[in-house]
């Protein structure tokens, strides 16, 4: 009888042995899927591009090799430098405009809207256009800016100008306009987040100390908004440097960009040359990001 009684009481105790892993192992397992995805989709392709950039090629095939000719051709050609200069010009222009526009929109949303419901609503109003396709939003500028488009017909019919303005479309102006349109939100969001985190008591303290509105802006708000501005800058700069469709469509094929250069090389099946270009672009953009991170410390944001 004792044997029969003791068995059932022992069984539940044995069944309760659960799988107890150390917390360290658990957190590594949790981080594993993301690490695998980043490794397979980010690290591996970049490694492959770096390897291919040293290969040899002719009109018909690629041969695994270890040559520096691709890099010498890329860095030694004046076409490359001119294209980089052109792309950097767009990057600087788009960055300056989106910084100005983004800061004031974020400032308005953070400091002048009283209820947080309204803030969410207005923020959604700004975000909804970005849910539609990038290409559509870029192409939708063409009927607006074209020679017979909205702007020109309105100007000609009201008599402000005698003939349609030519430089509205298929020009640098159109490229910068379309890029600002596409990437403005990437500047508004980080700055808005940073401004929301600013302790309102600091601004009250500044006013109590006698600061004017302008002094509050330059001494309290802008220094505290710098991490957000840096993050937005990183987004916008990397996006502009990698953009090829906007430059090609909005300039009508007249302007060059680095990514377009790579696309052309790939369509000619000159993969090692395109890979060398890609590595050079990656290094340039990483240097720019490192420069931005040197100037502003964004660890407070993360």
């Amino acid at each position, binding site marked *: 009888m004792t044997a029969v009684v003791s068995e059932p009481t022992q069984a539940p105790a044995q069944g309760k042995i659960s799988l107890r892993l150390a*917390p*360290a192992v*658990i*957190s*590594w*397992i*949790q*981080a*594993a*899927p*993301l*690490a695998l*995805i980043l490794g397979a989709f980010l690290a591996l392709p970049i490694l492959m591009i770096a390897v291919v950039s040293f290969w040899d090629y002719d009109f018909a095939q690629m041969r695994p090799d270890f040559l520096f000719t691709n890099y010498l051709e890329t860095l030694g050609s004046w076409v490359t430098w001119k294209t980089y200069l052109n792309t950097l010009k767009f990057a600087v222009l788009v960055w300056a405009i989106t910084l100005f*526009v983004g800061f*004031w*929109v974020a*400032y*308005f*949303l953070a400091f*002048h809207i*009283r209820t947080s419901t309204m803030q969410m609503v*207005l923020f959604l*109003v*700004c975000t909804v*256009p970005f849910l*539609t396709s990038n290409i*559509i*939003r870029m192409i*939708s*500028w*063409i*009927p*607006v800016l*074209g020679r*017979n*488009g*909205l702007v020109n*017909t309105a100007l000609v019919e009201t008599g402000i100008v005698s003939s349609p303005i030519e430089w509205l479309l298929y020009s640098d102006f159109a490229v910068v306009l379309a890029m600002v*349109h596409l990437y*403005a939100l990437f500047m508004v969001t980080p700055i808005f987040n940073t401004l929301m985190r600013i302790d309102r008591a600091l601004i009250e303290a500044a006013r109590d100390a006698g600061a004017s*509105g302008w002094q509050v802006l330059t001494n309290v708000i802008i220094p505290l908004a710098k991490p957000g501005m840096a993050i937005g800058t990183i987004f916008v700069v990397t996006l502009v440097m990698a953009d090829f469709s906007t430059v090609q469509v909005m300039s009508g094929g007249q302007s060059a960009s680095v990514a377009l250069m790579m696309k052309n090389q790939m369509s000619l099946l000159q993969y090692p040359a395109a890979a060398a270009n890609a590595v050079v672009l990656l290094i340039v953009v990483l240097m720019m990001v490192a420069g931005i991170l040197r100037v502003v410390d964004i660890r407070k944001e993360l």
Partner: protein
Amino acid sequence: MTGETRSREFYVLAAFFVVFVLFLYGPLSAILILSFQGPNGGLTFPLNGVSVHWFGNLFEQQAVGDFGGSFKRSLTLGLMVMAVTVLVSLLAGPGVPPALHRCHAAVLSGSGEPRRALDHHLARHRCVVPAAWS
């Protein structure tokens, strides 16, 4: 607070914001208006007849591309990507900071007492760690 009048700065910034929103929505709304044209419509104003002809054309047999099929494919793709991304990010969110901090803490403390060093590190950096895992 409710009776406070708005400063002039508010009106200037509000006008700027309205212009910004119009700038964002402008081209899309132009295209939207242009889509309500008749069969002879082009990409320019004025409108060539007002009808829903092109919306009907969307669902008919097309010479180039099949709207219904491609829409279904895009939707399925979007749902699959969303599921995978949400799953991976949810797992990685609470998992990556402790994993990184354990590395940090082990390095900093000379791996004397990893658990105490981790708690010390987390306390200093005020990380959000779910209680279940700490």
